[in-house]
C-alpha cells in the first residue's frame, strides 16, 4: 500500500481509531505538523490518545487497539512520534499503552493533566509493566501552551471527568481544536470547568477545524446538571431514613461520588467507599490535589473505619453500575465472601443509566439483589418515582454540540469522531446546522490536510488493529498473600496473545504479535535484556514512523 506523503505545509489529521464502523472506542489520532520554519526537516508528528475499544469481548478479545506497527518504534530506534497527548483517563483513551509496552514498543513522552498521568501509571502498575518501561510523563496544566512537534498545543479544560482536556493545536499554517470527550456542565464539582469565554476566544482568533466527540450527539433531551442529580440523590437517601443505603456508580465517576457525599452529609450519614476501581481513582485524585472530601463536605471512610457505625447511618458508595462481576454490587448480589451485606431492608441506588452492552447483566444483578430482599432504585426507576434523573451522560448531547460549534466557529471543517455511524452523522448534522462544513467519516484512515488554502482529504490509508486475547491457559502469579479478606490470595497478572485485525475487526493474522517474554512479569531481574518482540510487518507496516 502506497504511503501518503505529508510533505506540504499544514496540519495533517488521521483517525487511526475513533471512526470505527463497528462501535466506539479505541480512540487514537495522528497529527502531523509541517511548518516552514523547523530546523529538523520542517516535519513533526504526535499521537492523541491510545485507547482500547469497547465491546471487543463479544469477539473474544479483552481489548482492541490501533496497531503500533508503523507508528511506534522499539527502544534504541529512531523515529516515531514526538509525543503522546492524552485527553483524559478513560480506558478508551489510554488503555492501550499497557499493551504497547509489553509488546516491546517505546512510548514517546506523554503529555497529560496530573490526574490522567497518575491513572496511566495506575494502569501500567495493574498490568505489571516494569517501571523501566513506563513512558516519561510531562504534566500539562489547564491553560498551558506547549511546543510539540512544531505546533503550539494548548490544554483547554472540558467537562467530562477530572483532568479532561481538549487540545488546541496551532501552527503557522493552520489550527485544529480536538475536543476529547466533553459536555458542558458548570456544576460538576471537581477540577476546572469548560469556559465558554475561552472557547469563544479561540474561535474568534481563527480556527480551521474541530475534531469532536459524537457519542451523545443524537440525544435531543436537555441535559441534566450534576447539581440536579445531587438533589435527586439527596431526596432518595432522605426517603430511606432508617435503612441501609448502598449506591452503585462507575469507578471513574468521581463527580457522582461527590454528589453522593453531599447526599450523605445532608442526611447525617457517613460516606463509605468500597470497590477497587472507585477507591483507587479516589485515592489517586486525593493524592493529586483533587480534594473529593472538601467538595463533598464529608470524610471518605473505608468499610473498616465505618464498621462500628449503624448501617442506617452510613451511605456506602461502591462499584457495579455496569454489573461488573468483581464489583461491589456484583459481589453483594451473589453474597460472596467479604461482600457488602444485603438485608431485606437495604436500598440499593444505581446512579447510572443502563447501556445496551450491559443491559442483560445489569437486569440479572438487579434481580439477584431483589431476590435477597433489597429495594433497588435504578436510574430509570428514579425518574418514574418522581425523583428526577440521577444520571447524565458524560458526553455532549445535541445542545452541547451546537454550543461548541457556535463558540468555536471553525472556518473549514468539523470532523466528528468517537461514535458509530449514527452518532457521527448526528454530530455532523448539528455542525451543518450552524454553518460549519462537515467531514463525516464512518471508517478510519482518511488523512486530512488543513492548510491556508483549505481542508481536504488527501488519501485514505486504512489502519490495522490489534486484538488482545487473554491467555487463560497461562497463570502468572506473584508470591502468595496472606488470606486477608479472602478475595486476593494472589495478584494474577493477565497474559495476552495478540491478533492482527483489519479496520473492520476481522482477523488478518492470528497471534501476529507476541509479547516479549517476561516483559510484564514482575520481579524479572534482567527485563532490559528481554528478547525483542516478534513483529510481522505488513506492506503498510513502517510507513508512519518515517514518513515525511
Amino acid at each position: 500500500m502506497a504511503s501518503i506523503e505529508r510533505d506540504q505545509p499544514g496540519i495533517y489529521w488521521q483517525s487511526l481509531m475513533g471512526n470505527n464502523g463497528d462501535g466506539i472506542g479505541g480512540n487514537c489520532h495522528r497529527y502531523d505538523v509541517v511548518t516552514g520554519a523547523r530546523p529538523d526537516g520542517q516535519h513533526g508528528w504526535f499521537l492523541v490518545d491510545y485507547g482500547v475499544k469497547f465491546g471487543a469481548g463479544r469477539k473474544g478479545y479483552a481489548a482492541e487497539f490501533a496497531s503500533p506497527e508503523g507508528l511506534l518504534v522499539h527502544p534504541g530506534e529512531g523515529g516515531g512520534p514526538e509525543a503522546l497527548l492524552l485527553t483524559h483517563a478513560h480506558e478508551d483513551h489510554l488503555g492501550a499503552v499497557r499493551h504497547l509496552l509489553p509488546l516491546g514498543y517505546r512510548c514517546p513522552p506523554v503529555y497529560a493533566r496530573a490526574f490522567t498521568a497518575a491513572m496511566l501509571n495506575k494502569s501500567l502498575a495493574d498490568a505489571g509493566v516494569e517501571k523501566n518501561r513506563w513512558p516519561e510523563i510531562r504534566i500539562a496544566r489547564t491553560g498551558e501552551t506547549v511546543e510539540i512537534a512544531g505546533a503550539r498545543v494548548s490544554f483547554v479544560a472540558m467537562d467530562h471527568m477530572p483532568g479532561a482536556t481538549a487540545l488546541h493545536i496551532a501552527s503557522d499554517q493552520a489550527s485544529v481544536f480536538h475536543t476529547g470527550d466533553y459536555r458542558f456542565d458548570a456544576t460538576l464539582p471537581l477540577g476546572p470547568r469548560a469556559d465558554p469565554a475561552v472557547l469563544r476566544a479561540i474561535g474568534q482568533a481563527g480556527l480551521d477545524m474541530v475534531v469532536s466527540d459524537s457519542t451523545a450527539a443524537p440525544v435531543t433531551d436537555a441535559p441534566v446538571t450534576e447539581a440536579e442529580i445531587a438533589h435527586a440523590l439527596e431526596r432518595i437517601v432522605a426517603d430511606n431514613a432508617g435503612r441501609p443505603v448502598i449506591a452503585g456508580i462507575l469507578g471513574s465517576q468521581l463527580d457522582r461520588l461527590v454528589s453522593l457525599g453531599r447526599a450523605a452529609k445532608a442526611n447525617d450519614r457517613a460516606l463509605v467507599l468500597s470497590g477497587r476501581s472507585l477507591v483507587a481513582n479516589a485515592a489517586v485524585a486525593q493524592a493529586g490535589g483533587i480534594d473529593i472530601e472538601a467538595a463533598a463536605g464529608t470524610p471518605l471512610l473505608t468499610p473498616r473505619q465505618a464498621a462500628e457505625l449503624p448501617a442506617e447511618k452510613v451511605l456506602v458508595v461502591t462499584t457495579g453500575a455496569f454489573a461488573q462481576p468483581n464489583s461491589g454490587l456484583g459481589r453483594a448480589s451473589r453474597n460472596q465472601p467479604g461482600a457488602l451485606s444485603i438485608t431485606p431492608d437495604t436500598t440499593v441506588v444505581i446512579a447510572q443509566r443502563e447501556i445496551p452492552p450491559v443491559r442483560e447483566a445489569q437486569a440479572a444483578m438487579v434481580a439477584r439483589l431483589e431476590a435477597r430482599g433489597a429495594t433497588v432504585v435504578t436510574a430509570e426507576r428514579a425518574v418514574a418515582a418522581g425523583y428526577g434523573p440521577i444520571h447524565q451522560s458524560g458526553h455532549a448531547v445535541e445542545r452541547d454540540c451546537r454550543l461548541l460549534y457556535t463558540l468555536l466557529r471553525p472556518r473549514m471543517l468539523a470532523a466528528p469522531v468517537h461514535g458509530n455511524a449514527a452518532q457521527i452523522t448526528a454530530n455532523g448534522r448539528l455542525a451543518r446546522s450552524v454553518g460549519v462544513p462537515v467531514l463525516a467519516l464512518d471508517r478510519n484512515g482518511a488523512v486530512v490536510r488543513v492548510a491556508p488554502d483549505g481542508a481536504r482529504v488527501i488519501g485514505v490509508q486504512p489502519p490495522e488493529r490489534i486484538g488482545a486475547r487473554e491467555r487463560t491457559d497461562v497463570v502468572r502469579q506473584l508470591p502468595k498473600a496472606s488470606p486477608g479478606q479472602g478475595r486476593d490470595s494472589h495478584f494474577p497478572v493477565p497474559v495476552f496473545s495478540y491478533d492482527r485485525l483489519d479496520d473492520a475487526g476481522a482477523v488478518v493474522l492470528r497471534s501476529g504479535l507476541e509479547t516479549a517474554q517476561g516483559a510484564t512479569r514482575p520481579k524479572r531481574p534482567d527485563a532490559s535484556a528481554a528478547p525483542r518482540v516478534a513483529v510481522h510487518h505488513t506492506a503498510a507496516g513502517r510507513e508512519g514512523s518515517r514518513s515525511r
Partner: protein
Amino acid sequence: MDWNDGHALGRALRDAYPSGNYVTVSDAELIDLVTALPGFGKTAVPPDAATLMAVRLAWVAAAEGEDDTSPYEGGA
C-alpha cells in the same frame, strides 16, 4: 522489602494497619507507615512520586480485591 516491592508492601500495609485510610493517606504519612513496617529495609533514598503511587494503589488492591473497572466506562 523495599520501595520496589509494591504488591508485598500493599499486603503488609493492609495487615499492619487494618483501620488505615488508604483513600486519603497523605504522601508523608504513607512514607512513615511504610518505613515503620517490620521487614522494610532501611534506605536513604526516598521514593519517587510514581513509586509512592504504586504502593498506595497496591494497598488499595490488597484491601479491596480484584479490579472491577468496566470497559464501557468511557461511553457512559
